[in-house]
């Protein structure tokens, strides 16, 4: 039996096509993936992300524990509410999950992890936390909504509880604020401005209704995927997995190498890989050719040698052409060939993101 989020009935009301997503019944789209995509780039949309895993960590040694658990360094968090994106690695330096951690107090942190990894990750963290006396709460009593787009914050503010409105208005990017039960962060997975809101289940439906009344449109998983890929963001299970390190996934910028004496899980293996510099890398690709679309698992060729694989690919609604992420050998490439059906098409190598704040970030030559 698939699990239902607190907003299941609301999705049906909005004519969603529901699909099973890692054991959760989630809206794929509400009619048109393309319209929903543009809605977020041009105005504002709301995503039900209640399937994501929210973990609350508390204890005197919580910060010390997170500095050991995560490849990025929570010592970078200098003030209450600040957020940090990080990978969580196994001893081999491979990625168990990617997540955002929010510092609430010196001894309290909130982590938002992927839905697909819920059991694995929560067991892993509990096992690692034993020696640190850190308490971990995996709460299913929350709903989580992401409201994203250039007008998302303006339209969401009046829908928030009055006591949170001024704090939410003043939030800097990658910061959060909260009341006793609500939590508002200026984070997201679309490349647009917006909020992610964690709130108690009994209030989820009325909050959803108010957002829709404010002119925010519901957006499904299909558009969530094209939006995040345009923003160059990795999807766990597709671009990231337990067979690859952050260095092989274009996420070296999220690994805090300094201070050199900080021990974190996977560091030794990662240092070794970093020194050898033989590992594959992740690049962005654009295919300015109307004859095909980049898709995950397509083979990438360099001078006719089979060299890599597309991890994520789609048609980019904002750019009007196909984009993708590919894992390739570490040489510098300007272009590659991709096998699409019976054709060999040339794709240009670019540095993601492809789109941020509604605008193209890469040079596109006319087809």
């Amino acid at each position, binding site marked *: 039996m698939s699990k239902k989020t607190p907003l299941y009935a609301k999705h049906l009301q909005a004519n969603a096509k529901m699909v099973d997503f890692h054991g959760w019944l989630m809206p794929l789209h509400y009619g048109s993936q393309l319209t929903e995509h543009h809605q977020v780039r041009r105005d504002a949309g709301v995503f039900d992300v209640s399937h994501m895993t929210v973990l609350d960590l508390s204890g005197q040694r919580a910060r010390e524990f997170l500095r050991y658990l995560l490849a990025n360094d929570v010592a970078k968090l200098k003030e209450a509410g600040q957020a940090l994106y990080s990978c969580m690695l196994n001893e081999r330096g491979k990625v168990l999950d990617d997540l955002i951690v929010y510092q609430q107090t010196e001894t309290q942190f909130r982590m938002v992890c992927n839905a697909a990894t819920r059991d694995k990750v929560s067991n892993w963290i509990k096992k690692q936390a034993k020696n640190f006396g850190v308490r971990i709460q995996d709460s299913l009593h929350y709903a989580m909504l992401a409201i994203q787009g250039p007008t998302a914050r303006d339209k969401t503010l009046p829908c928030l509880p009055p006591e949170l409105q001024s704090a939410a208005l003043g939030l800097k990017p990658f910061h959060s604020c909260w009341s006793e039960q609500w939590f508002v962060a200026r984070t997201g997975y679309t490349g647009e401005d917006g909020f992610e809101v964690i709130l108690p289940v009994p209030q989820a439906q009325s909050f959803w209704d108010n957002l829709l009344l404010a002119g925010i449109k519901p957006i499904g998983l299909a558009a969530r995927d094209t939006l995040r890929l345009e923003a160059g963001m990795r999807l766990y299970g597709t671009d990231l997995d337990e067979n690859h390190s952050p260095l092989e996934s274009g996420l070296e910028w999220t690994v805090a190498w300094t201070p050199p004496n900080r021990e974190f899980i996977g560091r030794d293996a990662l240092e070794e890989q970093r020194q050898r510099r033989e590992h594959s890398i992740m690049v962005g690709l654009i295919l300015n050719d109307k004859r095909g679309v980049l898709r995950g698992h397509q083979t990438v060729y360099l001078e006719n040698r089979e060299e890599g694989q597309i991890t994520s690919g789609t*048609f980019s609604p904002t750019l009007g052409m196909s984009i993708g992420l590919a894992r390739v050998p570490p040489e510098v490439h300007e272009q590659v060939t991709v096998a699409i059906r019976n054709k060999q098409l040339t794709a240009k190598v670019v540095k993601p993101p492809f789109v941020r704040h509604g605008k193209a970030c890469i040079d596109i030559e006319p087809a």
Partner: protein
Amino acid sequence: MSTKSEIPEDLKYAKSHEWARIEADGTVTVGISDHAQKALGDLVYVELPEIGQELEVGAECAVVESVKAASDVFSPANGKVIKINEALVDEPELVNKSPYRDGWLFKMQPDKDDSGLNELFSAAKYQVILDNED
């Protein structure tokens, strides 16, 4: 999708969700059904056969690609391609907007004997196929 698919009475249908309209001059216009376009979602690319290309019933002859996935189109008859819908190159979304009119894919001249057209389903039978799929 919660909305019911349109199935015009005057067309013939293949199990693989193509439709065929037998025109007064004996040529056949081919497209994909409303059900098929809904299942695919927003189309971004259509690969059409070439004019003059010989088609075999049930063989791949075109590709329709949506944001989500690519899908093969199978010929509903034996015959030769005589016209393709050039408008789809720049406006593949016509297939979504108007699967039975502006979104047609190609026209063919079916073989005189053994065109395979008799094997296609009526609208009523196609409806039964869709009902059994859900």
